């Protein structure tokens, strides 16, 4: 344990999954073993990093020892470490579930072989993005994430999946290019690309243009209404572990970058914040209605992602521009809650689809097979997404509404309430299908035995439920290293 402090944990967090991806691709026969080992290593590195951040505050690595702005720095403060931990935790359990979902009996060999390198490349990109302090580096990371995510979307290989994947690809590239154009304007104005340069900058037209372009690109990538058009298809048609990663983790990166940029760059005025909140409200309403109308379980879950993204933006806007110094915490808490619960929900929805053989919501109650454990998990995840105590989703919504009330922005409270009611409505469509068996005359078969693929989402759902109890320490951890505030 002696050389533990000398090991550079931020680098390890990025390089461990990268090494795994290289090995898993070069040696496909052992892909699953290498993949799992690499995810475990990454998780261990994140844990070590978190301990250091807890003990010493923000950890900075100056790659190449040049130091920004000439070189590129990696920085792990409370917020980035929290998101790294979220990625590691969700990723670990999705990996465990994937071991079973892509087991030889259920998936063809190719799917199994390609899942691991793509997922590990995705993990590299995610971790890299959370640690990055350089806008161009963020662009490259976004592209790593985009290509790996598109690969995961079309892993199933069906026609609908490929069509949705292509649509996702277009949206992803366009989002990244808008971001790149913004990077160009940042460099034109400031002559540097690091966050420290952004924080020190004076407001200027070019920076406003840069911020607008970057935000537009990020909103497209994070699928905020009305730029959500690509999301339901892509997330509903992917295989279950891939959907869990896409919905739980991938959309969160753009949200995270959005939070960082809006704090670091001079915002033009209140209007932008209100616009974000309004779009979020639109997402809650429109996504809620679409989720009520969805005929398939996975599509409903995908639309619920659109709703939750909207909710996060409402949390961001809850107290106007003045409240931004606090409201990022509500947004971050909701990001965390949604990641854990949605991964659990997609995994369990996939299990239900696998066991029952279809995922038509209307026919769920007449299935001769009852995947009870998966249904239970789905219900637990729904509790967190609806926001009932003591779940993490409840904690997030509580912080949101508290801030909005304190600022007197009652309209955001109202929107949150409506969103909650809508989510109760659409989730109860599914839950009702789990419960009512009166239309069925044949004897009901129990689930097909316990499986690893049942356990992984169950653990995640229980985590989503119980993490709400430790919301206060999580909020305190987020603030380590002053992610946003006077001292950068």
């Amino acid at each position, binding site marked *: 344990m002696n050389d533990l402090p000398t090991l550079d944990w931020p680098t390890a967090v990025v390089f461990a999954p*990268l090494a795994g991806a290289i090995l898993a691709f070069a040696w496909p026969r052992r892909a699953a073993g290498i993949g799992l080992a690499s995810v475990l290593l990454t998780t261990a590195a994140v844990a070590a990093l978190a301990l250091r951040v807890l003990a010493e505050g923000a950890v900075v690595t100056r790659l190449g020892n040049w130091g920004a702005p000439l070189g*590129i720095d990696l920085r792990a403060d409370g917020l980035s470490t929290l998101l790294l931990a979220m990625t590691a935790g969700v990723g670990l359990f999705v990996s465990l579930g994937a071991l079973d979902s892509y087991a030889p009996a259920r998936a063809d060999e190719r799917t199994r072989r390609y899942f691991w390198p793509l997922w590990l*490349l995705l993990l590299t990109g995610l971790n890299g993005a959370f640690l990055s302090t350089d806008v*161009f580096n963020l662009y490259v990371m976004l592209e*790593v994430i985009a290509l790996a995510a598109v*690969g995961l979307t079309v892993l199933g290989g069906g026609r609908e999946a490929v069509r949705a994947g292509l649509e996702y690809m277009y949206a992803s590239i366009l989002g990244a290019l808008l971001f790149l*154009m913004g990077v160009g304007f940042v460099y034109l104005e400031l002559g540097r690309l690091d966050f420290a340069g952004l924080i020190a900058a004076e407001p200027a037209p*070019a920076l406003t243009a840069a911020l607008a372009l970057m935000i537009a690109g990020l909103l497209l990538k994070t699928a905020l209404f009305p730029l959500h058009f690509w999301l339901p298809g892509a997330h509903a048609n992917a295989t279950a572990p891939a959907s869990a990663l896409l919905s739980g983790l991938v959309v969160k990166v753009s949200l995270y970058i959005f939070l960082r940029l809006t704090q670091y760059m001079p915002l033009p005025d209140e209007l932008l914040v209100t616009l974000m909140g309004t779009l979020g409200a639109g997402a809650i309403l429109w996504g809620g209605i679409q989720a009520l109308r969805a005929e398939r379980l996975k599509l409903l879950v995908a639309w619920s992602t659109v709703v939750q993204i909207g909710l996060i933006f409402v949390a961001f806007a809850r107290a106007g521009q003045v409240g931004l110094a606090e409201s990022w915490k509500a947004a971050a808490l909701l990001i965390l809650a949604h990641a854990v619960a949605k991964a659990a929900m997609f995994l369990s929805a996939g299990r239900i689809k696998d066991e029952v053989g279809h995922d038509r919501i209307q026919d769920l109650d007449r299935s001769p097979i009852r995947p009870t454990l998966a249904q239970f998990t789905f219900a637990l995840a729904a509790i967190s997404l609806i926001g009932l105590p003591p779940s993490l989703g409840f904690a997030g919504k509580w912080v949101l509404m508290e801030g909005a009330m304190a600022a007197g922005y009652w309209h955001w409270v109202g929107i949150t309430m409506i969103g909650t009611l809508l989510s109760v409505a659409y989730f109860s469509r599914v839950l009702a299908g789990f419960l009512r068996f009166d239309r069925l005359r044949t004897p009901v078969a129990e689930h097909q035995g316990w499986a690893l693929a049942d356990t992984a989402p169950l653990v995640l759902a229980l985590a989503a439920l119980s993490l709400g109890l430790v919301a206060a320490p999580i909020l305190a951890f987020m603030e380590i290293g002053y992610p946003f505030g006077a001292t950068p």
Partner: protein
Amino acid sequence: MTDPLLIFDVILGLAIVALAVAVLAMHDRFAMIVLFIVFGLLSALAWVRLSAPDVALAEAAIGTGLTGALLLTTLHHIRATPPAPVPVPAGAIIANLGLCGLIFGGLVVAFLSTPLQAPGLALPVAQNMEASGVAHPVTAVLLNFRAYDTLMEVVVLLAAIVAVWMVERGTAQAPSPVMGEIYRGFARLALPAIVIIGTYLLWVGAYAPGGAFQGGAVLAAVGLLLLLSRLYRPQPAHRPLARLGFVLGTAVFAGIALLVASGGRVPFEYPAAHAKTLILLIEGMVTISIAVTLAALFHGREPEYASVSENHK
């Protein structure tokens, strides 16, 4: 009287914009791609005018040449089905035209407000050139100052080939066109020349425009020639070697970046005495990976044993 070169610049700029419009407006898909290639070459010319020869080389070789080849081979694959005429409502066109016009106007205003010809990072780069191990500033930025970005760029390339192999499993290649004897003779003549040029570009990158990406792109052209002339046909048995080729650059780059981090050094901090050697080693391996990956991206699907495929007639 203005400088005649400025008049040339104006004409070039207008031609580039006109070509961009023409690419999107051209009805015939083949002509569209050809116009795009012309557009790319003129952009490269503009970048030479802006004293960015490295970028121009990369754009001409990768952004235009290889991208054009990729587009043409895709068109060859899907040419059987002409695009279904989907009418775009005029309202949508006008609305988007207005939106893009607004964005254009806004960006122009923002652009005009920036301090053009600001020093940027030129000074810090110049001050640290000594310690970088190479004499060409762009190579120093790519392989030393911002090496982390470049590593991730190679990772993007790796992700692309993994995704392409995954996406195209089980699809049969459209039969490639027969090119004939004269073309084969040309390929035999051109192959060694291209290898020399690619290696030269890689080598010269240490002190003049050129480097791993441009060299790799030129070497990828070797792969394209081999594939098109059928002097080489990808076999399933070659897959392990190909995979090794794809990951070689990333693995060596990442490995060196980590291995130098001992004795108080951080990752990517090459020891001064070996910086030149290490950078050349990384560049060489990255060049091989780029060349193999780009050629494989052109070929598309993973070579498979025949039993799997045949859903394309």
